[in-house]
């Protein structure tokens, strides 16, 4: 089962903040965040392994609510380089769900 991301797209001006949400119908072991620029391969941002864990990458951070089976990615003081499509990937806990599945993505456009 693929995770569900929201919103589908967001447009920001430089310096603005945004939140991208990722939720799953299955119990999660891990949440992975990637960014993909047009025509390129997805690039790893961070992985969250524990409920309540928060991590940061430059001014991009994420949280993982294990009980709610949700994760959020926070883009703070956005820069032009943050433009791209953000994907969350999830790893499950069940015997039938050890695979890494990705959501449909959130397209972020940062304008000057």
């Amino acid at each position, binding site marked *: 089962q693929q995770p569900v*991301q929201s919103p589908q797209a967001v447009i920001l001006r430089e310096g603005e903040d945004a939140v991208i949400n990722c939720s799953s119908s299955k119990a999660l*072991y*891990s949440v992975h965040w990637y960014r993909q620029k047009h025509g390129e391969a997805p690039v790893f941002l961070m992985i969250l392994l524990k409920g309540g864990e928060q991590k940061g990458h430059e001014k991009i951070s994420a949280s993982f609510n294990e009980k709610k089976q949700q994760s959020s990615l926070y883009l703070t003081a956005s820069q032009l380089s943050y433009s791209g499509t953000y*994907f969350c*990937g999830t790893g499950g806990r069940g015997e039938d769900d*050890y695979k*890494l599945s*990705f959501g*449909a993505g959130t397209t972020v456009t940062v304008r000057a």
Partner: protein
Amino acid sequence: EAGVAQSPRYKIIEKRQSVAFWCNPISGHATLYWYQQILGQGPKLLIQFQNNGVVDDSQLPKDRFSAERLKGVDSTLKIQPAKLEDSAVYLCASSLGQGAYMNTEAFFGQGTRLTVV
């Protein structure tokens, strides 16, 4: 450290023809993934290997797609016969993780862009 290598980068074939893609993961990575990414969509997992065993192939259209990972290293994905809807980018990725749980990052190759006409 060398990244995930894929070939070819681009391929154009006619429907009903066959095609094969090759992937060489990062050395020492136990887990290898093949994803299909249709334009504007997220990567869809086709098959996931751990060493040379299959972890999941539930979304692989087995009537036309096949994949193998001999000796637990490089892998090939084949489509025979191809359909128009197979036009997509095929991404190979690898990760270090040995256990059942997804606890290490995946590194992606540049992908193969397949166009079926």
